[in-house]
């Protein structure tokens, strides 16, 4: 079951290291993400987007404040699609997808069926036995997306998932992600997308949070009221893109 995410008065400081002074990245940062919604965080490099994502993922701890879900964090099923696919090179494609199911209590046959179904959805069934090093960058990221959806996540975090790919591949994967997001047969998670691509944010997100400043603050929150499924060439996306750019430039 997807969950609301409450980012409550978070402060994040990185201690001084060597010649680098202490860095205050977030101060009294507050935000709510509604259950089942996909929110994109955009902003200039170093503005704290990835810090917010890491705090939600539990990969980092806030100096003050908290990230809260509807249930205790251990009861939240969390998945991440990283910028790099982060696959285990010595496991086959299906093993890479299946490994995240090992924490579930599902029967083996059911786990296998889930893996097969996801590999069908990401159009890699013929590569089920291949090792990741034998796949292209786009194919590897598709495996990573399949892995993220395998556990039917409550919260899905997307950390610049397509930024390392060529634009044509990225466009295909955005469409793939949208189709998985809209798949009625699966529970829709609460999503957080970090991206530098404003059109990508407009295409995928329900709301776009424009961040800026040091320490980071929310400059604007833009509602994307475009009906899904969206088309990547929809002129309405460019209008959203223009508003995001305006918000960024005004900051």
């Amino acid at each position: 079951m997807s969950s609301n995410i409450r980012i409550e008065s978070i402060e994040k400081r990185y201690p001084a290291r060597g010649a680098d002074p202490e860095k205050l990245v977030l101060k009294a940062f507050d935000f709510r993400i509604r259950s089942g919604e996909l929110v994109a965080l955009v902003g200039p490099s170093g503005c704290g987007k990835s810090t917010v994502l890491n705090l939600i993922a539990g990969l980092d701890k806030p100096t003050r404040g908290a990230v809260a879900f509807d249930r205790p964090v251990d009861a939240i099923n969390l998945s991440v699609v990283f910028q790099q696919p982060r696959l285990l090179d010595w496991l086959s494609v299906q093993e890479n997808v299946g490994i995240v199911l090992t924490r579930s209590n599902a029967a083996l046959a059911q786990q296998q069926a889930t893996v097969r179904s996801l590999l069908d959805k990401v159009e890699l069934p013929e590569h089920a036995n291949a090792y990741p090093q034998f796949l292209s960058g786009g194919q590897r990221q598709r495996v990573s997306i399949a892995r993220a959806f395998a556990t039917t996540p409550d919260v899905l975090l997307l950390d610049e998932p397509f930024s390392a790919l060529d634009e044509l591949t990225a466009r295909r994967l955005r469409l793939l992600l949208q189709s998985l997001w809209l798949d009625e047969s699966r529970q829709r998670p609460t999503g957080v997308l970090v991206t530098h691509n404003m059109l990508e944010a407009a295409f995928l997100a329900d709301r776009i949070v424009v961040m800026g400043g040091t320490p980071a603050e929310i400059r604007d929150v833009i509602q994307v009221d475009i009906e899904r499924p969206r088309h990547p060439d929809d002129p309405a996306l460019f209008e959203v893109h223009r508003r995001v750019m305006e918000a960024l430039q005004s900051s």
Partner: protein
Amino acid sequence: MDAKELTLDVTRPPHPERAVPVAQRLRGAWHRLAPQILFFVVLIAGWEVMARAAHSPLVPSSAAIAHELVKICLSGFAPVEIGNTFLRMSLGFLLALAIALPIGILTAVSRFAERFFEPGIILGLTVPGLVWALLCVIWFGVSLASPVVAVALGVLPALIISVHQGVRSLAHELVEMVQVFRLPTSIVLRHIWLPVLYSFIVSGCRVGFSIAWKVIVLVEIFGMSDGVGYQLNAQFSTQNVEGVIAWTLSFWVAMLLVEHGIFQPLERHANRWKKGVAA
């Protein structure tokens, strides 16, 4: 059903070599072996030229060496003595591996442990095998403990470094992935740590085995009444140069068999997922 006993065996990836036709595999084998055969031809020819030029019992002919080699092999003497030496080496090696695994992992995950063990590792790398051999013979006398401990001490630093590097090679990004997906410890050990360490341990073992051979020979010379080292010493005492060379060659052949029969297949298996290797 134990959910931890995953899935992951659904279908193992096919071994790349299985798909290659027999003729192509034979051609490949010939291309690999031809330079090595050429090496032996050049070596034997060069030796023969030297022997004829020297015309001395100190440089015996290839035929005399071959005769001695065949004699010790067919009599069953060489296999038994090589077996003794291998048994001692293997025991010492296993002891070293059992110690190297926890220390290597510890030094990779703890800065304190790394600094603590560093002088010991450098000491181990610096001390010649001869010193370990002498000390162990003094301490343990003519017993199995001498070669086993000497080999373990000689091999330990190389193995610790291999394990250390293996653990360090696991990228921080993968550790984060494991953390986010909350993978069970048993799965992390079996499907992440073990495969990562596997290839490093195999290459460490290859290096370690060559070090072990140099140590075991010395221990057998100084303190044992059998084994290849003892036989080398016996042949040396009687100035039987053919014997010294034949025993050396017999052990070399045994090491080649270990290399091609154990280490290389293990290494291919450990690296089967690497693009360059499989291709």
